[in-house]
């Protein structure tokens, strides 16, 4: 046997060992993928027999911030059924039906409510010795059912939405969308499917849609506050900026590339070249068209993005994406300067969710800081042990306090000043300095415009920020602003 010419077996073995190691590393990575990254998704997969096995199992409660029960299991005639004592909390709380699926918080927090979610590693370790494989958890929301019911009552039979949040923490206090539905009837065995079919029938105003987070509306003048944040933030304007041609353009129209921006609703300002605060008070379209053009397309979109535009807002419920422009144009997405000028005062192809506009108000209220919006305070076991706690979290530092001061002054003036009062004065809370901005979004055609209001109170140390929209409700100052003022006033009384 001639062994001289063959390389030593040893060397081959070393490389073989590396190959074996690589095979096993691949297996370990596979484990990490399925047991780490994909574990939750697999466990929540509707085809998982585990989910089916636990479908008949008990489910945790959903509570408001003060412990009011919004959803719970009750036993009726020996059968466990899901009950929703406060239909006014819909569609935020959602429904959960073994046959029709789930929505709202019932859907987002299904894993916690059914007890399938992984808890903290230590708790999980302790739980392994329990006989039950699932431990349903309670979900405590940041909603205050008193304010929530108030918001729904204020909306009444109109189609619309109200978002109210604490600007200093981002906690959502009320999330109303009308018309809504009765979750008890959705989950009722037997009659549920027929009721659901009726709800989703065309021409029924989409009661299942959560307008507050997923409705997209033309914003009209409330968008001027986004333009203002972009203008002040980018340095394109200051509080003292005036446009000398503006008084003249009030009469002749402001011609942008042949398109005429017209105003005509504040004749009493006469020949005064308005500064930023005055322009906000009287909601001057021509002034904000100038601001938009001075800021530029790229900067306007960039600052809007910092406020949450152009991406789904991370939230406990699904959110629609707000946009400054539908995009596709050569001018940073805008078709031309005409679209940019129109967008600057909230027309154009701009579309926003009520939640997004509430965040704009909250940012200005909170000194330029945007807190991440949250709807759930804690997830806890029935005995009260907190499993998951939501800490207030700064989402974006949009403006400095100094930059923000003039925006606050402008919104306060819009409600409280002599020039502003005719437009947004209906939002004023007696005895409290109130800040706000109305919007009346023209939809084209002959329909009534959307009525908008965003605001916060008290102006000096805000405890609540709101966004109100009434679909095709008319003028913002007449229809939406009174609701916003009323709701904020009620909150200051409820939570002194």
């Amino acid at each position, binding site marked *: *046997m*001639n*062994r*001289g*010419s*063959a*390389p030593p*077996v*040893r*060397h*081959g*073995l*070393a*490389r*073989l*060992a590396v*190959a*074996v*190691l690589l*095979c*096993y590393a*691949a*297996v*370990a990575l*596979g*484990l*990490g*993928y*399925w*047991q*780490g990254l*994909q*574990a*939750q*998704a*697999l*466990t929540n*997969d509707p*085809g*998982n*027999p*585990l989910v*089916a*096995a636990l479908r008949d199992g008990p489910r945790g409660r959903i509570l408001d911030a003060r412990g009011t029960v919004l959803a719970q299991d009750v036993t009726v005639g020996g059968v466990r059924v899901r009950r929703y004592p406060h239909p006014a909390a819909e569609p935020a709380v959602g429904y959960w039906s073994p046959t029709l699926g789930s929505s709202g918080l019932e859907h987002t927090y299904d894993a916690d409510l059914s007890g399938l979610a*992984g808890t903290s*590693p230590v708790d*999980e*370790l302790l739980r*392994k*010795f*329990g*006989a039950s*494989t699932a431990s349903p958890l309670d979900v405590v929301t940041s909603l205050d059912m008193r304010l929530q019911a108030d918001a729904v009552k204020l909306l009444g039979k109109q189609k619309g939405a109200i978002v109210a949040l604490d600007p200093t923490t981002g906690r959502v206090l009320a999330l109303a969308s009308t018309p809504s539905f009765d979750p008890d009837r959705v989950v009722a065995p037997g009659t549920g499917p027929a009721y659901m079919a009726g709800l989703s029938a065309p021409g029924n105003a989409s009661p299942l849609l959560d307008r507050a987070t997923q409705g997209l509306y033309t914003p009209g003048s409330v968008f001027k506050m986004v333009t203002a944040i972009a203008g002040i933030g980018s340095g394109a304007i200051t509080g003292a900026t005036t446009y000398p041609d503006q008084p003249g353009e009030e009469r002749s129209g402001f011609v942008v590339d042949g398109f005429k921006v017209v105003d005509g609703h504040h004749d009493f300002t006469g020949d005064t070249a308005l500064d930023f605060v005055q322009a906000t008070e009287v909601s001057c379209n021509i002034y904000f068209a100038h601001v938009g053009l001075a800021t530029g397309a790229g900067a306007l979109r960039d600052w809007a993005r910092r406020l949450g535009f152009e991406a789904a807002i991370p939230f406990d419920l699904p959110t629609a994406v707000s946009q400054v422009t539908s995009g596709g144009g050569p001018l940073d997405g805008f078709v031309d300067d005409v679209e940019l000028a129109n967008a600057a005062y909230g027309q154009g192809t701009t579309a926003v969710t009520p939640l997004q506009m509430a965040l704009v108000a909250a940012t200005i209220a909170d000194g330029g800081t945007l807190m991440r919006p949250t709807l759930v305070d804690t997830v806890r076991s029935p005995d009260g042990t907190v499993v998951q706690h939501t800490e207030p979290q700064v989402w974006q530092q949009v403006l400095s306090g100094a930059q923000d001061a003039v925006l606050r002054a402008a919104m306060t003036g819009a409600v409280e000043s002599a020039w502003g009062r005719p437009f947004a004065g209906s939002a004023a809370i007696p005895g409290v300095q109130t800040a706000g901005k109305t919007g009346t979004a023209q939809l084209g055609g002959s329909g009534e415009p959307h009525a908008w209001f965003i605001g916060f109170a008290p102006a000096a140390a805000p405890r609540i920020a709101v966004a109100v929209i009434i679909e095709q409700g008319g003028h913002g100052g007449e229809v939406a602003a009174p609701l916003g003022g009323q709701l904020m006033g009620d909150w200051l009384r409820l939570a002194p």
Partner: protein
Amino acid sequence: MIRPSLAGIHPRPRGRETTLLALAAAALLTGWVSLATTQAGRLSAGDPHLLVIYLVAAAVIHVLFVVTGRRTDQVLFPAVVLLGGISLLFMARLPPSLVTQDAGPAGILTLAPLQLVWLVLSLSTIGGLAILVRNDTWLRNYKYSWAAAGVTLLVLVFLFGDEVNGVRLTLRVGPLAGQPSELLKIILVVFLAGYLAENRALLAATSLRVGPLDLPPLAYLLPMLAMWGIALAVVVVQRDLGAALLFFAVFLGLLYVATQRTSFVALGLLLAAVGSVFLYAVEPTVQVRVAIWLDPFAQALGSGFQIVRGLYAFGRGGLLGTGLGAGLPSPDGTLAVPALATDYVFAGVAEELGAAGAIALIGLYLVIAERGLRIAARGADDFRALLAAGLTLVLVLQAALIMAGDLKLVPLTGVTLPFVAYGGSSLLGSGICVGLLMALSDAGVEAPAPPQALTRGERLRARGRGVAGRFERAVR
């Protein structure tokens, strides 16, 4: 050469093995208490007699190792004991009626007791081989006879094999039933080690250039093609994709170690690719396997059912697992994952022990790989080195293949997880591998004696091997 008689046996302490076995026993006892506690809902040791029998068996074999004083590896056996123990815990946890067998006077045995019987037999096989095998000529000099035996086995399966679940694997002789491919893979390694050890110098040095390809000389290419043919035949005859893949992977691994020529391995992979395409074209079962591998969720209630259910089990386990006994192997009365005790035992263990436990399991196979390859590297000559490497590869590649299949990294194949999956043939086959590895690890095992003055005993034995010897010469 005369082997020492009983009087010549010198006991030798095996401290490392003792310590490792004690640790394994402690881990398994803890596991048993954890399982019983979960099942009873309060602190309990349950009825531990199965585990106690198992641990006593392991201890007895360990004592025999000490008494006989062989200088064999001290890590392999504890690693196997731990793997087998985990298997026993898991089988004790599954519905007992999953497998039942009438054991005559012993009554009807259920899943866990049956697995215990096989585990003890497997450990005994390891013990027997590790203590008794002191000479490798019976493997070394009869490679073609072994190969012939292997082919015969294959033919027998083809002619008389029983089909279970569309796979023709089981051969029945009277009351005994077994899966010959478990034996076939060991025979294959013996043949390859012998063949490659003899010819590796030539294989490594010479070549036949055909265009860009650097081929082995034709005379040596033929056995390689034969191997390829056998692997294909295994698939076609037994419909056993896993065994075929394993055979071919072991073959390529050994070929590389022997020649260290990447061109041969590349050629082998090319052949494998051609074979795969061919099989995909002609075998509907292969097409289904590939389709459900790519997207099991498309057929979640049909052909992809098992894979999808397996993934659910992994997902349920998460990083730390549900805990022993707290998994849901049968949430609605039927088994959550089909073949949970055999093909999908890894998913079941990963559900209850989590990624942490599953990675520990992977670690145990890596320990076996490390010990096995180390034994190979220390091998007295090429045959022993290649034999040890081949036996190691059979174990660790098989484990990797089924674990990767469960995890949907490769198409699922029906190979078993060595020492953990339920099944007698697999446990015995794996036991033979480890037993031989341990025997090879003893530096004292003699190299073949020069062919001269035979003792009387050897003459007798040589006469018995006459037929095989003539066969060897004829083939050569």
